[in-house]
């Protein structure tokens, strides 16, 4: 029964197997006549009609949109086989099997084994297939179009607009910052707390512990932390309070040392810099915690700063610090660690506040510019959400559908 053509793509049978049971069920109930027909050796199926081929939009020239006319009588058909070949070639390739219930339109070219070459003319023919795998061919149709790649993807306009808007805003504020225009930034409560905590340690004559996180220098949080460390060290240099900075990452250690040295220099007290105050502890996470906890219990610092990227060790550090009675100020963008800091520390810089604090303290124009640019984008988002809220209320009250319109404005299709 099985003919040559069906052995070649053996997988096809598989595809058909489950459909088979469904199709048979349907046949039995709805069209007993069709089944009888199938049993006859010269049974006759209606072949599909003409094939229409269009170039698909927004592709790399490797996809064609193929649709074909459904046969007049669909009884007994449970699938269609789609064959394609380059015009002038001998062999047909079976490129797609479409179950009878599926739409008669599909995108050809997704199959990596039979790719479509851009600019090549193909011809198609489609066959109706019976349950037993017999095929009845429709006409051979030359494709009405060749596939071509497009220069621009029209489905991505919204992303493009958003991206351009974002880039323009960031660069606008970059420029503004570089021209030295002062931009307003609201005071961040954490910064006040930092100053106050330094003062407190000075009064008590006890050291200050500064943990710059345990991540690498590539982490934005670490970079932010080191900027803040510079400012803190400068203040400390003026008061001559001892500073302890243990490090976990060797590269962060070298940068931190530089930063602190520079800060003492800027404060006019390079002589007060103690080279042992910034040191490398160990790379192992829990050993690092054990080391820092030891320092906390021995030296009893008056103030602990935990600023930067933290993982599971945050809890252990903050717990010991809280027991030693120190004032603790934390800041991280690690959302899972923030709750631990909030419940154990006196003040916590939450997420972006850490970046903002660093930009604020560092006073590097471009950082502030970037922050301003991001703020502008947030303002746009906030505008949209407010509008959505208003429209939502109007929708409920007046029974309109303007919210959908607004949603469509920003919605991008799932499939590209």
């Amino acid at each position, binding site marked *: 029964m099985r003919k040559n053509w069906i052995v070649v793509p053996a997988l096809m049978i598989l595809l058909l197997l489950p459909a088979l049971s469904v199709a048979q069920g349907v046949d039995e109930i709805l069209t007993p006549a069709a089944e009888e027909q199938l049993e006859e050796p010269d049974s006759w199926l209606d072949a599909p009609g003409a094939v229409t081929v269009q170039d698909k939009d927004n592709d790399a020239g490797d996809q064609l949109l193929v649709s074909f006319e459904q046969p007049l009588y669909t009884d007994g058909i449970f699938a269609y086989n789609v064959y394609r070949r380059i015009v002038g070639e001998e062999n047909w390739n079976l490129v797609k099997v479409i179950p009878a219930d599926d739409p008669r339109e599909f995108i050809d070219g997704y199959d990596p084994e039979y790719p479509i070459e851009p600019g090549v003319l193909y011809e198609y023919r489609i066959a109706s297939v019976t349950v037993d795998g017999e095929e009845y061919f429709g006409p051979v149709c030359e494709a009405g179009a060749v596939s071509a790649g497009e220069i621009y993807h029209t489905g991505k306009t919204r992303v493009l607009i958003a991206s351009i808007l974002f880039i323009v805003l960031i660069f606008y504020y970059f420029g503004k910052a570089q021209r030295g225009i002062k931009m307003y930034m609201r005071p961040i409560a954490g910064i006040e707390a930092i100053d106050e905590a330094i003062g407190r340690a000075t009064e008590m004559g006890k050291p200050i512990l500064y943990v710059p996180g345990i991540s690498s220098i590539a982490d934005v949080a670490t970079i932010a932390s080191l900027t803040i460390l510079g400012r803190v060290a400068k203040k400390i240099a003026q008061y001559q309070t001892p500073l302890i900075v243990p490090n976990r990452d060797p590269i962060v250690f070298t940068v931190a040392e530089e930063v602190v040295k520079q800060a003492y220099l800027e404060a006019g007290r390079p002589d007060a810099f103690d080279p042992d105050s910034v040191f490398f502890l160990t790379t192992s996470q829990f050993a690092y915690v054990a080391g820092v906890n030891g320092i906390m219990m021995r030296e009893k610092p008056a103030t602990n700063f935990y600023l930067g990227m933290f993982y599971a060790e945050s809890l252990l550090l903050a717990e010991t610090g809280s027991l030693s009675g120190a004032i603790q100020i934390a800041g991280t963008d690690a959302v899972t660690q923030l709750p631990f800091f909030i419940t154990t520390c006196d003040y916590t810089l939450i997420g972006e506040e850490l970046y903002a604090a660093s930009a604020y303290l560092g006073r590097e124009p471009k950082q502030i510019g970037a922050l*301003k640019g991001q703020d502008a984008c947030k303002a746009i988002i906030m505008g949209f*959400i407010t509008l959505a809220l208003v429209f939502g209320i109007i929708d409920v009250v007046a029974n309109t559908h303007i919210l959908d319109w607004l949603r469509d404005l920003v919605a991008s299709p799932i499939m590209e």
Partner: protein
Amino acid sequence: MYDTIGIWVGAFFTLAIYSFLYKENPIYRLAEHLVVGISSGYAMAVTYQITVKPRLIDPLLSGNHWILLIPGILGLLYITRFIPKISWLSRYPIGFYMGTAMGVSFPLIMKANVLRQLEGAMVPLYSSGMPWTEVLGNIVMILGTLAALIYFFFSKPHKGLFFGTGSKIGIWVIMLGFGATFGFTIMGRISLLIGRIQYLLGDWLHLIE
């Protein structure tokens, strides 16, 4: 046999780590160092097996994929990092990767993190048949998102009706969110402990099923 020894060794190292709860000790330290070495060694072996051999060495040896020499050499430049004189060469592979990775992710982040989330925040407040908890939830969700965004807005002082009240509501919403995270974090850590106890009591001692 193979598995039995394995489970005993596994149980030994599990207990070695737990001994840290009592006191730091040499066996704990040994386990801690071992894991660093083994995991890096494992990563090297697997990377060779899965990437370097089938994607670089095999095609090169087969002789007609000379273009793969370019990434191969670019990759080798990483190693110059250890030779101080020419360590600047290692910037090229790092630069290539960072630049392209940043570029690839830019539009995708814009879509998934920004546009898609904005779309998600625009839900109808009420449609027929919604229970009151869901309506209240939607209102809380929209207002909460807005308020939390205000909290992270640095260009305006947190004063007045919009920014003042907004940021206050914002921090409350953020705290509720963190409370949920907090609860889940505790839950997660305990789950991991449960996993180990199942290993010790079940796989090792066969005391429980």
